[in-house]
């Protein structure tokens, strides 16, 4: 792919021709893994932020509409006098019907089904009010009230996402390990193939480091070449995936935009992989040469 003047004919090694493509593939996979990690992380924190500090108060309906109104008013009075609460909204019936319709069908709007009253509560960001505490405060005065702070649901979701994140990280780790392994293998082969030339360099007075640099420079060059190809393959792939995701219901997936930082992280991957390749080659050569005279 590229040529650098070298005291060893590393250019002509079969393995070195195949190495950039392997690194391209590795970088392609690692960019996808990192992109996945970033998306999942952003999703989790977005959901977390969206739901944290909110609660839903539910007033279970009785048969007596008049009493239900009174209970609602009691609850609203308590909420209004609670200093921790920033805002509360009663979901009107039409909206409730709209939310329920996809699940239970037209019966939701028929008026035959008793519908609970739902109040969306938002706490002040500094408030330390738990759902249990608010629930106690309410049930002391009003019966048939329940409170949900979405914690259980959210915790499970976040745990799931974190598992996926860990998995993506593991994939990244394996990719790096596989790259390191491949570089060690190709470098050792290179050392064996060029043993004669290396011995001549030694006898002429070359330090191990001088010889190791030849290999390291080569690995860096091949790594960068392969890495850039891998990146150029990965970016359109991510773009296409993002495009596909956008056509889905946006309520299901939060709309994730990659920020500059995300692109910088992904663009840095070929460099990281090349540097890993370079250091691996250097260490491998230094270790092998130590055994020579």
């Amino acid at each position: 792919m590229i040529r650098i003047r070298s005291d060893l004919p590393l250019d002509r090694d079969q393995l070195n021709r195949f190495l950039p493509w392997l690194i391209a593939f590795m970088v392609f996979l690692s960019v996808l893994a990192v992109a996945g990690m970033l998306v999942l992380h952003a999703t989790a924190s977005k959901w977390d932020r969206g739901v944290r500090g909110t609660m839903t108060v539910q007033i279970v309906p009785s048969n007596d509409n008049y009493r239900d109104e009174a209970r609602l008013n009691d609850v609203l009075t308590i909420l209004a006098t609670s200093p921790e609460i920033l805002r509360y909204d009663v979901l009107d019936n039409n909206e409730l019907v709209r939310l329920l319709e996809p699940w239970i069908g037209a019966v939701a709007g028929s008026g035959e089904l008793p519908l609970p009253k739902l109040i969306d509560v938002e706490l002040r960001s500094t408030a330390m009010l738990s759902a249990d505490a608010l629930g106690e405060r309410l049930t002391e005065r009003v019966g048939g009230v329940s409170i949900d702070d979405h914690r259980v649901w959210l915790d499970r979701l976040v745990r799931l996402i974190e598992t996926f994140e860990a998995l993506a990280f593991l994939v990244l780790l394996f990719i790096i390990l596989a790259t390191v392994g491949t570089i060690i293998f190709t470098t050792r082969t290179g050392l064996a193939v060029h043993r004669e030339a290396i011995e001549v360099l030694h006898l002429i007075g070359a330090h191990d480091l001088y010889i190791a640099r030849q290999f390291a420079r080569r690995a860096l060059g091949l790594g960068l070449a392969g890495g850039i190809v891998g990146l150029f393959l990965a970016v359109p792939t991510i773009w296409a995936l993002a495009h596909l995701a956008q056509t889905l219901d946006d309520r299901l997936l939060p709309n994730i935009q990659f920020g500059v930082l995300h692109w910088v992280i992904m663009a840095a991957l070929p460099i990281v992989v090349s540097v890993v390749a370079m250091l691996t080659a250097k260490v491998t050569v230094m270790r092998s040469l130590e055994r020579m005279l």
Partner: protein
Amino acid sequence: MHIENLINEEPIVRFDNVGLRYGLGSEVLKDVTFALQTGSFHFLLGESGAGKSSLLKLIYLALRPSRGLISLFGNDIATTARGQLPALRRSVGVVFQEYRLLNHLSAFDNVALPLRVAGVKRSEVEKHVGELLTWVGLRDHMRARPPTLSGGQQQRVAIARAVISRPRLLLADEPTGNVDDTMAFRLVHLFEELNRLGTTIIIATHNHQLVERLGHGSLHLVKGRLSVTPGRVAIKHDMTSETSVSKPIKNLHNAGREPENEMSKPVLNTQKKLK
């Protein structure tokens, strides 16, 4: 620096009861003891398989002895740290038996290697390598790769590579092996000229005619055992007294050098060409 100081007191190469065996085989070299003074010129003689190449390899640090003591420029090889070996090797120029040129590099790059390895500036490298290649008559073949050169031309590249960094000690393994007698004498004259400039020379050969005509000292290897015949420059064989013969040559050796930038100067500044 350390080496520089020691060089005047110590023989340039000293072997003390050196034995060498490959693996578990019998000894290729047995009880080899000698010391060579700075500025001396020696032929290393012996039948094929007598151990000439092995002896040279011990001197240019391609092999370690199985027993005995070797000291090079006053440094005991056994106790010298591995990191110090390149510095010693840079002071030893070697014309290998099969030349061992790097075939993927041009003649120019082959000759430049010892300087590049020593970290000499690019401009210096260009200048000295160009001069030396012109001097050995390869001006028009600088960019040629060794496989496209004739045997004689390859040999000159090999010699140029061996002397480019002004080594204190020059070893040549059968340099006259593949050339006719005229060429052989011409080569030896080149080595003599280097010797006059202060380089200590050891040439392995089995061309006895050459040795007899020139009358330099010689080291004879017979079945791994060494006997020494002093020549023009005495060899300190008993290692008890300093021979006085080598003194003037030592002075010449030092006079021919500048302490600074030593590595970057080619030893040959003569305009004479080797055809």
